[in-house]
C-alpha cells in the first residue's frame, strides 16, 4: 500500500475543530485537523496523551458528548459529509460502515450481557436479524477472529475473558457488519506484549483479507511502524507531520517527530543517552501563539527563527506526500 491509495479515499477529514466548553475555558482538543484514509489503507495516528487523537476519532463517529462539540470542518465518508447527516442516518453508519474498538477491551464490553449477544446486537441493528440468527453469526465471527471454542466463548460474560480475548471479541463486534473503516483507539495499550503482537497481526490480516481501511490511534511508534502504511503525527490538537511510514521513520522532518523517535529506546540500539523533548505538552485552553511546539523546540533556537512564536505555521508539502507543519521548511521563513 502506498500513497496512491489516497486517490480512492474512504474518509477525508477537512479542517476539523472539536472543542470542549469547560468551566475553565474552551479546550481546543482538535483544532484544524486534516486526514485522509484510502481504501484498504492503514493510517497510524500518533501522539501523546491529550493531543486530541482520540477526540478526532470520536468526532468521526459523531460521538462527542457534552461539553464537547464539533465546531468546524467536514468529514467526508465516500464523499458524503457525515456532519450534515441526521442523527438517524448517522446511526445507520455507526457500527455498520464505520466501527470502532477501544483501549480497555474488558471495560468496553457491557458486563451484564454475554459476548455473543453483544456481537449479535450488531446484526439485530444493522441487518434486522432475529436474535437466534444473530447469535449464530456471532459465533461465526468469533471463529474468524481466532477465538478457540467460539461457541463456549459466545456464552461467556466479559469478566470471564482475558484482555486479549476481550479485544478479539471487540474486533469481532466491530467487523460484524463488514465495515469499510475500522477505527482502533489504542487497541493494544492495555495488553501484554505477547498478546499485543497477536492483535496487531489480526488487524493486519483483516486489512489484507477484507480490504478494510483502518485508522490505528496510538502513542506507541513501534506499533505504527509495524502496521501502518502512512502516519500522521498529532501535537496539541493539530497534525504536525504526515508521511508514508518508511519515509517518516527514515526522514522525520518536524522537530517534534524527530524528538519523539529519538526519545524511545529501540531494541538493539545502544545509545548512551536518549533524546529528550524538554518541557511538557501545552495547556489546550491557553495555547501558545504561533507554533504550538515552539516553547519546547530546540531546532527553532538553533535556527534562530523568530516567526515560530509569532505566526501559526501551515502544513506544507515538502516531498511526495510528505507534509509538515514547520517554518524550518518554509521558503522565506528565515
Amino acid at each position, binding site marked *: 500500500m502506498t500513497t496512491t491509495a489516497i486517490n480512492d479515499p474512504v474518509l477525508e477529514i477537512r479542517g476539523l475543530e472539536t472543542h470542549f466548553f469547560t468551566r475553565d475555558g474552551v479546550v481546543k482538543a482538535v483544532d484544524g485537523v486534516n486526514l485522509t484514509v484510502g481504501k484498504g489503507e492503514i493510517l497510524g495516528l500518533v501522539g501523546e496523551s491529550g493531543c486530541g487523537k482520540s477526540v478526532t476519532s470520536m468526532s468521526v*463517529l459523531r*460521538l462527542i458528548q457534552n461539553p464537547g462539540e464539533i465546531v468546524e470542518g467536514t468529514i467526508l465518508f465516500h464523499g458524503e459529509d457525515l456532519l450534515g447527516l441526521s442523527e438517524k442516518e448517522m*446511526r*445507520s*453508519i*455507526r*457500527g*455498520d460502515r464505520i*466501527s*470502532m474498538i*477501544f483501549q*480497555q477491551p474488558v*471495560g*468496553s*464490553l*457491557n*458486563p*451484564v*450481557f454475554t459476548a455473543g449477544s453483544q456481537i449479535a*446486537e*450488531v446484526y439485530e*441493528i*444493522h441487518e434486522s436479524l432475529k436474535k437466534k440468527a444473530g447469535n449464530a453469526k456471532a459465533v461465526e465471527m468469533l471463529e474468524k477472529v481466532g477465538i478457540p471454542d467460539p461457541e463456549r466463548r459466545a456464552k461467556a*460474560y466479559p*469478566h*470471564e475473558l482475558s484482555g486479549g480475548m476481550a479485544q478479539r471479541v*471487540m474486533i469481532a*463486534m466491530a467487523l460484524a457488519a463488514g465495515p469499510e473503516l475500522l477505527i482502533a483507539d489504542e487497541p493494544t495499550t492495555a495488553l501484554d506484549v505477547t498478546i499485543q503482537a497477536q492483535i496487531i497481526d489480526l488487524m493486519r490480516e483483516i486489512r489484507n483479507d477484507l480490504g478494510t481501511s483502518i485508522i490505528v490511534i496510538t502513542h506507541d511508534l513501534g506499533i505504527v511502524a509495524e502496521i501502518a502504511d502512512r502516519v500522521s503525527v498529532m501535537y496539541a490538537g493539530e497534525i504536525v507531520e504526515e508521511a508514508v511510514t518508511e519515509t517518516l521513520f527514515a526522514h522525520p522532518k518536524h522537530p517534534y517527530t524527530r524528538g519523539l523517535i529519538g526519545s524511545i529506546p529501540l531494541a538493539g540500539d545502544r545509545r548512551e543517552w536518549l533524546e529528550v523533548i524538554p518541557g511538557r505538552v501545552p495547556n489546550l485552553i491557553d495555547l501558545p501563539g504561533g507554533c504550538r511546539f515552539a516553547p519546547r523546540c530546540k531546532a527553532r533556537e538553533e535556527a534562530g527563527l523568530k516567526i515560530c512564536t509569532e505566526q501559526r505555521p501551515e502544513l506544507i508539502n515538502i516531498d511526495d506526500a510528505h507534509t509538515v507543519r514547520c517554518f524550518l521548511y518554509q521558503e522565506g521563513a528565515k
Partner: protein
Amino acid sequence: MARFLLRRFISSIPVIIGILALVFALARMIPGDPCRAALGERATDEICDAYNERYGLNEPILVQFGIYIKDVATGDLGESFRFGVPVTQLLIERLPTTIELAGAALMIAVIVGVPLGIISGYRHNSKTDVATMIGANIGVAMPVFWLGLMLQYIFAVFLRDTPLALPPSGKLDAGLIPVPFYEAWGLPMNGLTEFLSEFTIMNALVTFQSEILSSAVLHLILPAVALATIPMAIIARMTRSSLLDVLGLDYVRTARAKGLRERSVILKHALRNAMLPVVTIIGLSFGLLLGGAILTETIFNLAGVGKTLFDAITSRDYTVVQGFTLVVAISFVIVNLVVDLLYTYLDPRVRVS
C-alpha cells in the same frame, strides 16, 4: 446458584445470633422488674420469686440466654403481659398491617422514584432534572410524622367535601368488619389462614368484598404516601447518580459506536447496570420503612408492628418488645438476603464466583 444462596445464608448466621444476643440483652437492661411489670406493683416478694423461678429468671444469664434461644427456635416468643396473649398471636394480627403498609409505600417509592431518576439522569441538567432534584432534596428532608399530619390536614380538612377527600386514620371505615377468606371459603382457621386473612386488601380481593376493599385502599393511601416519600426521594437520587455514572463508562460508548439509538443505549445497556446499586438501596429502604412505620402507624392510628412495638416499649411489655424487635431485625436480614439474590441475578460478575 443454590450453593451461593446457602453460602450467603450461612454467612448471616453470626449476625442473627448477634441480633438474638442484643435483643436479649437490651430487654434485660430495660429498667424495671419484669415480675412487677407483669403482675403489677403490688405483687409480693414470694409471688415474684415463684414467678422468676417459673420463667427461669433466677438462672445465670447465659442459661437464660440458652433458654431464650431454645424458645425462639421452637417458635415460642413468650406471652404479652399487657394483652395476655402469646406474642406470636400478636404478630399474626399485627404484622400483615405493616407489611401491607410498607409494601404499598415501597411500591409507590419504586414506581415513582425509578422513572423520575431515569428521566433526571437522562435529561441531566434540564429543567425536569433540576425540579426533580429539588423535590428529592425536600423529600429526603421531610420528617415523616410531620408529613403525615400535614397530609391528614390537607385531605381530611382542607379538601373535605371534595372528591379528593381521604380518611385521615384507621384501617377501615367504622363499622366495617371484613369476613376472613377462610370463613368465606370454608377453610379451617389456623395460624396461617388467620395471618393471611389479616392482609385486609388481599383478603377483600379474593373474597370480593368490594366495600371493604375500597375503604381499605382509601385508608391506605395517606399513610403509604407519607411513608413512601423519603425512600422515593432516595431512590430517585440514587437512580439518577447511578445512571450518570454508568453513562460515562466505556461500554456505553461501545453501544453508541455500534449504532444503537440513544433510547436503547440508556434503557438496555446503561439501565441494567445502573439498577444494580438501586436494587441494593431498595433493600436498605426497607429498614427505613420499618423505622418510619413506627411513626406512620402512630400518626395514622394503625395497629401494626410499629405502633404495637412503640406501645409495648412505653408500657414495658418486654416480651412484646423482645419478640417484635427480633422479627423486625430478622426480616431486615432476610430482605437483604433477597436483595443479594436479586443482585446476583442481575450481575453476572457476582454470579460466577
